[in-house]
């Protein structure tokens, strides 16, 4: 299976966006080679601003640029973009509802060897609770490219969450990416697996293997965590009667929480949330860490089987 890191797709998408639209500016905080904004900087040096190791000022400058009419894409690692600069994002971007897209790479434990200090497991939660902010977590390179174009056209602040390692390409170029609309990749009747980011590919593989065992599960790529696709969640809750969520993020406040909020209010059914159980990450290879924290195909299968018994 062909693979691409979502950050690589982001870098290429920015260059395309820069070619199409003159109002696109890109900011980074000394991580442009890792976040891949260096691709844009190389082609459009006059529209690239390096803030140096100063994430707060990067976001503040992006706000000022957006206030003059620019569409600013600001990148760093997820931990610094959303953590270090949180209150600037809250007050300067979201409160003023400015056209700044915070596009953070190196989210989750698949940062790997750098360890827990650099593995953001709470960024979806803290971005999701900020008014005006949209949160998008693409599953592969193709949807990342489409997401970059889509969030350019979406007025207001957006948080785009990207990863470090290469992940399987799930979509072809004809895929239709709409902010706020989940994508049903598999139909099924016994349960629904709702995932975002790297967990989407794992849920697809789990669905195939469950099928072999005679269990039919639907798979949703819930690439937009906010605004969440309530309609689709309610529909699948009714149709399948059980939902498993999977994300490379804390189980507190992220995709799982967002799905539970809808299910609790609209159609209560058993839900199992997979993610990091209120713990920090640590050093290791990305695959070792996913295994350690139970974010594997095997665990999805196991948890789905337990979940279905609760129906």
């Amino acid at each position, binding site marked *: 299976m062909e693979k691409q890191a979502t950050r690589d797709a982001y870098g290429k998408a920015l260059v395309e966006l820069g070619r199409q639209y003159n109002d696109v*500016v890109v900011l980074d905080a000394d991580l442009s080679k890792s976040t891949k904004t260096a691709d844009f900087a190389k082609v459009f040096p*006059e*529209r690239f*601003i390096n*803030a*140096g190791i*100063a994430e*707060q*000022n990067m*976001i*503040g*400058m*992006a*706000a*000022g*640029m*957006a*206030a*003059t*009419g*620019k569409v600013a894409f600001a990148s760093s690692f997820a931990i610094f973009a959303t953590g270090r600069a949180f*209150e*600037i994002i809250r*007050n*300067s971007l979201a*409160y*003023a*509802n400015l056209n700044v897209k915070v596009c953070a790479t190196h989210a989750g434990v698949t940062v790997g060897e750098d360890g827990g200090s650099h593995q953001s497991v709470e960024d979806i939660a803290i971005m999701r609770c900020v008014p005006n902010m949209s949160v998008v977590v693409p599953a592969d390179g193709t949807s990342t490219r489409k997401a970059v174009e889509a969030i350019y056209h979406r007025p207001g602040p957006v948080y785009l969450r990207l990863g470090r390692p290469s992940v399987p390409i799930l979509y072809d170029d004809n895929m239709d990416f709409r902010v706020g609309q989940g994508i049903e990749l598999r139909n099924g009747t016994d349960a629904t697996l709702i995932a975002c980011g790297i967990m989407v590919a794992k849920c697809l593989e789990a669905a195939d293997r469950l099928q072999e065992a005679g269990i039919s599960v639907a798979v949703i790529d819930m690439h937009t965590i906010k605004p969440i696709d309530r309609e689709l969640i309610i529909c699948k809750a009714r149709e399948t009667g059980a939902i498993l969520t999977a994300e490379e993020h804390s189980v507190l406040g992220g995709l799982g929480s967002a799905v539970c909020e809808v299910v609790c209010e609209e159609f209560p059914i058993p839900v199992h949330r997979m993610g990091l159980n209120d713990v920090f990450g640590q050093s290791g290879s990305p695959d070792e860490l996913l295994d350690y924290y139970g974010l594997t195909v095997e665990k999805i299968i196991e948890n789905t089987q337990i979940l279905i018994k609760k129906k």
Partner: protein
Amino acid sequence: MREITDSSIQEVREKALLIRRDIIKMLGESGSGHTGGSLSAADILSCLYFWEMQINPQQPHQADRDRFVLSKGHAAPVLYAALAEKGYFQREELDRLRKLGSMLQGHPDMRKVPGVDASTGSLGQGISWAVGMALAGKMDNRNYRVYALLGDGEIEEGLVWEALMAAHHYHLDNLTAFLDHNGLQIDGPIEKVMSPEPVADKFKAFGWETLVIDGHDPHQIMAALNTARTIKGRPTAIIANTVKGKGCSFMENKAEWHGTAPNQEQVALALGELV
């Protein structure tokens, strides 16, 4: 170089007086808000809005307009008074300061108030916006200028120094920042709470052209703005030595007037002095 005439100085003085009177009246009406730091900045805002900036109240979003960022956003009353006086909105709005549903929020909201170029209030962030605005102006070869007003307590925020560094790094000679150097913050004298001194040396060390003036003398403010327009390749800081509560004897140089509004008796007393 723009001419500084007796009549322009006279006009700026008159506007500053009206601004100060409006600050007192609107804070008396709202019952809460930041009086001292609004009064200390009145002469600076009067010079900006009634002499320096190229702006048109009928077209508050015009792309080539000069921009002003009130980085010390708690001094919102001085900005609102200047904008009302300039004609951005009806003066009656001033009586609605801090009231439910009012466009005049406790801290400036660009989405609500015509003429407010930046939503500020969380200290340190405005100067960062101003740097972004100046950067965008350079990028597009526009001729507008960007002005920011910082508090001297505000510069205790680390973000300010990130922004100052960036402004110098990107040669933003279209950016001028005032420091309202009144020496007091909520908990007391800045030198006791967390001294940012020597402030002029620090701005210089960060590569800014740095001027030190009396922030209540219109002639000195205008002359500094004239100088700033001639400086090429780097931003200009105007350290404006001011008096917190300036114009009301019982408020002057008193930290307790940082976040306190006058009662009706004090309003009458203050307006009696502001003539």
